[in-house]
C-alpha cells in the first residue's frame, strides 16, 4: 500500500500527519519524535527529486531510442516551459542530453542535421516532456510525464545582495517563526509550524534533521487563516507567544504544556549591530501582499526606510518573520518561496564592506 500523502506524493505529508489529542501522551510523543527524526530532514526533496529528474530523462531517452528507423546524428532543440528559470531549464537539458548520449543517440550542433525537438510543459500537477522528430515521411512523437511534486524545487536566482545570506532550512509546511538554539550541545533551530491546521513546535539539529516534534493545541485555540506566533528558547524551555496567549513547555517533558491567557508580548523590531562600527541597523520588509516577492531593507537605525544607505536583499516571496534576538549581527528570516511554495529560513548576517 502506498501512502498518499507520504512517499508517493511529497515530503510534507510524511511529516504532516495530524496529531490527535490523545497523542499528547508521552509515549506517543516519543514515537512521533523518533519517526520525525527518521523521516524529516531538511531539503529532502532535492535528493529524491534529482533521482526523479534523471529517471524521467531516462524514460524519455528510452522512448526516443525506440523510434523505428531513427538513426544518424540529430540536432537537439530544447523548448523549456516558458515559466522556467534558466537554471531549471539547464538542469533538465543536461540530464536529457546525458541520457540520450547514454543510449547512443548521436547529437550534434550542425544546422543541417535532422531535428529532434524536445518540449517541456508544466500542467497543474505534472511536467510533460514531448520529443518530436521526423523519420522518413512521418512525424514521431513520444510523450512522458512526471508528477511535479516529485521533482526538486526550482533553484532561486541568486539575488544581488550585500548582506551575507544563507538558506538554512526549508519545509513545505508553513513556518511561523524560527529561533536559533543557543545550547552548544543541541545546536540547530526551533521552529513554530502551522501544519495541517495545527500548531507544532519542532526541534531541528544543525544538519536539518528533526529531532523532536510537539503538537501545541492550547485550550480555546482555533485554526486561523492568518496564523501568527513566535517561538523562543531559553535552555530547554520553549515559550510560544500566540495572539492573546502565552505557552511554555520543555523538550524534556513536552506533555506539560502550560498556557495562560495574557496580552501578547511580541518581539520588538529587529536590530542588527554592525561588526565594523557597532552601529545599529534596522530590518524592514517592503511587501504587504502575500503573493509578491519581498525585499528586505536594512537601514541605519534612526533613518527612514528607503534611505540611500539601505542594504537590499530580494527574497523569493513574502517575508513572514524575522528574529534577531540571539545574535547581535545576524537574524533568522522566514520567507515563502513563491516558486516552490515552500517556507524557507535564511540566516542573514551583516558584514563589513562588499
Amino acid at each position, binding site marked *: 500500500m502506498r501512502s498518499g500523502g507520504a512517499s508517493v506524493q511529497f515530503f510534507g505529508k510524511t511529516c504532516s500527519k495530524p496529531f490527535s489529542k490523545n497523542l499528547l501522551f508521552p509515549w506517543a510523543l516519543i514515537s512521533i519524535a523518533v519517526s520525525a527524526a527518521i523521516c524529516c530532514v531538511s531539503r529532502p526533496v532535492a535528493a529524491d527529486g534529482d533521482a526523479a529528474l534523471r529517471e524521467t530523462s531516462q524514460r524519455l531517452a528510452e522512448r526516443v531510442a525506440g523510434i523505428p528507423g531513427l538513426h544518424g546524428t540529430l540536432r537537439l532543440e530544447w523548448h523549456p516551459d516558458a515559466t522556467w528559470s534558466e537554471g531549471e531549464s539547464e538542469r533538465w537539458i543536461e540530464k536529457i542530453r546525458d541520457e540520450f548520449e547514454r543510449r547512443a543517440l548521436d547529437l550534434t550542433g550542425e544546422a543541417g542535421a535532422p531535428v529532434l525537438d524536445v518540449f517541456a510543459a508544466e500542467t497543474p500537477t505534472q511536467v510533460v516532456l514531448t520529443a518530436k522528430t521526423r523519420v522518413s515521411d512521418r512525424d514521431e512523437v513520444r510523450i512522458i510525464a512526471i508528477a511535479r511534486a516529485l521533482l526538486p524545487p526550482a533553484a532561486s536566482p541568486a539575488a544581488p545582495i550585500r548582506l551575507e545570506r544563507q538558506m538554512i532550512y526549508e519545509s513545505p509546511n508553513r513556518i511561523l517563526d524560527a529561533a536559533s538554539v543557543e545550547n552548544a550541545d543541541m545546536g540547530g533551530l526551533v521552529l513554530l509550524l502551522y501544519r495541517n491546521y495545527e500548531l507544532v513546535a519542532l526541534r531541528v539539529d544543525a544538519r536539518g534533521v528533526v529531532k523532536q516534534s510537539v503538537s501545541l493545541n492550547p485550550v480555546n485555540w482555533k485554526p486561523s487563516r492568518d496564523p501568527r506566533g513566535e517561538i523562543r528558547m531559553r535552555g530547554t524551555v520553549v515559550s510560544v507567544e500566540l495572539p492573546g496567549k502565552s505557552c511554555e513547555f520543555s523538550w524534556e517533558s513536552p506533555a506539560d504544556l502550560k498556557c495562560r491567557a495574557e496580552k501578547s508580548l511580541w*518581539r520588538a523590531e529587529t536590530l542588527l549591530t554592525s561588526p565594523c562600527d557597532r552601529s545599529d541597523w534596522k530590518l524592514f520588509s517592503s511587501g504587504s501582499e502575500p503573493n509578491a516577492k519581498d525585499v528586505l531593507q536594512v537601514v541605519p537605525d534612526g533613518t527612514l526606510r528607503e534611505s540611500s544607505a539601505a542594504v537590499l536583499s530580494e527574497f523569493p516571496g513574502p517575508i513572514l518573520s524575522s528574529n534577531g534576538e540571539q545574535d547581535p549581527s545576524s537574524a533568522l528570516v522566514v520567507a515563502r518561496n513563491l516558486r516552490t511554495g515552500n517556507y524557507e529560513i535564511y540566516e542573514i548576517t551583516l558584514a563589513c564592506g562588499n
Partner: protein
Amino acid sequence: MRFTKLRWLAAISAAVVALAAFAAQAATPHYGGTLHVKLRASSVSLDPREWAPGSLSAAAGEKLASLVYDRLVTLDDHAKFQSALATEWSHDAAGRNWQFKLRSGVRFSDGSLLTPADAVVSMQISLGKGFEVTSVENGVAIRAAHPVPDLLEQLASGRNFVFRPKPDGTLLGTGPFFVAESVAAAPAEANPTAIKPAKIKFQANEGAWSGRPFVDFVEVTLGEPPLRQLLDLQVGKADIAEIAPDLVRKGRQEGLRIWNSSPQTLVALRFDEALAAPASDQLREALWLALDRDTMANVLLQREAQPADSLLPQWLSGYAFLFESPMNLQRARELRAAFPAGVPGAAQPLRLRVDAPGDLFKLMGERVAVNARQANLAVQVMLPGSANNSPALAAGLHLFAWRYDSLSPRAELEAFVKQLLGGADLPANMTDPEQLFAQERRLLEERRILPLVLLPEYAGVRANVHNWNASPWGDWRLADVWLDSEDPMTTKAPTGPQKNSSTARNPGARP
C-alpha cells in the same frame, strides 16, 4: 492665533495617525466587511448533483459552492495536494483501491458532525458509476473498476464536494461560509418591466475547521449586464466582478485591476450525428480548413482569447501545441467543388445553431458563417431567441462552449466525449499522456468537433481587495480574501480572531 495653530497641529496629528492606521490596515489582514461579487450567470445551482459537465452555469455554481462545501483534498499552486477534509490517503500499487482518513471534529454549518457516511454518500454521487465508495474506520475507501492514478486530481476539482442532503432537498456543507439569504430574480417594484437580479448572501462560518474567513459576508449578485458590472466595479458597488472577454480591453484602459485564469472555456463547433456519415467527410474537412481562428481570437476577441487547435488546453494536457489547424481556403474550395449531391452547405444551407448564451457567441456564430462563405459554403446561423431558431428545425452544426472543470486531463476528455459525442469511458491506460494524445488526435481527425478559441476567465478586482490569490484554473479562494476597513477613523475592534496589526511590514516587530 495660538489657538488656531494648535487646532492645525491637532488636525495634522490626527491625519497622520489616521494615515498610519490606514497603512497598517493595508498591510495586515483585516477581519470583517462584506465582499460584493458580481457574476454573469443569471442563475446558479449550489447543488453539485445538478451540474451538467462542461456547462458554463456549472462553473458559476462550482465557484460559489466552494464557499459552502469542502473537498477531501485540494491542489495548491505548486502541484502539491493538500489535505482538506481528508488528512491522509493511501492507495495500492495499481491505484485502484484508495483510502482516505477523515479529519476529526469537522462540523457542518448547522453544528452537526461530519461522518464517514456523509463522505460516502457525496463521493458516490460525484464519482458515479465505476467507483464503489464505502466507509471505513475514520474514513472512506474508494474502489475503482480500473486504475485511477489521477484520483487526487479528480477529487481536488469539479463537483467532488462533500455535503449532507437535508430532508428539504438542500445541502449542508462544512465550508468557510453558509448561505444566509437567497433572493430570486424578480420584477422591480418601481419599474415592473425591469428585473431585479438574483442575489445570494453567504455568511462567515465562525466554526469553520479551516479557520474563520476574513470577511463577514459575501454578497453575490447574478446576471447583471456585462457593462453594468464593469461600471459597478468602477464606482465601488462591486469588489470583484466577472468581466466579459470583449470588455477586458475597456476595463484595462480604465485602469481596473484585471485578473485572468488559464484558458477555461473552449468554444467549438460540433457536427450533428446525422452529419457524421462518410458522405459529409468533405463538408467537415472543408469547414475545418475555412475557419480563421486567428481573426476570431485577435480581432473579434481583441487578443483576449487564444486560437484553439485541440480539445484540451495546453495548461491541462501539456501537449496541445502538437495540434495545428492551418487555414487553407484554396483546399476548402476544392473540396466544396467536389461535394456529392445532397450534402448540406451546397444547394441547401448548413444550419448552425448557437447553443451558448450571450452576445459573444452570437458574434462567433456569424463569423463562422462568414468564413464558410469564403469557401463557398452556405451556413445559416440560428441565434438563440431568433425567429429562425425553432427547435423543430434540425441543425447540422452547433456552436457550443465547454467549461473545463477537472484537473485530470483524462477525466476531462472522458467527460467531453461522453457529453458531446455520446462516447463511452476512455480506456484505463489513458493516464499515459502519449495514449491520451493519440486518443485526442483521433477525435480531432474525425472532424466532428472543430475547436475555435479558448477563453480565459476574467475578473476585475478592486484595490480594496487583499490577498486575492485565485488559482490559475479559476478557484477564487474567497475565504482568504480580506478587505480594507471602510473608514480608518472609525474602525471598530473586530470580533473573532482579530490579529495584532500595525507591523506586518516590519518583519522584526510583533506579528
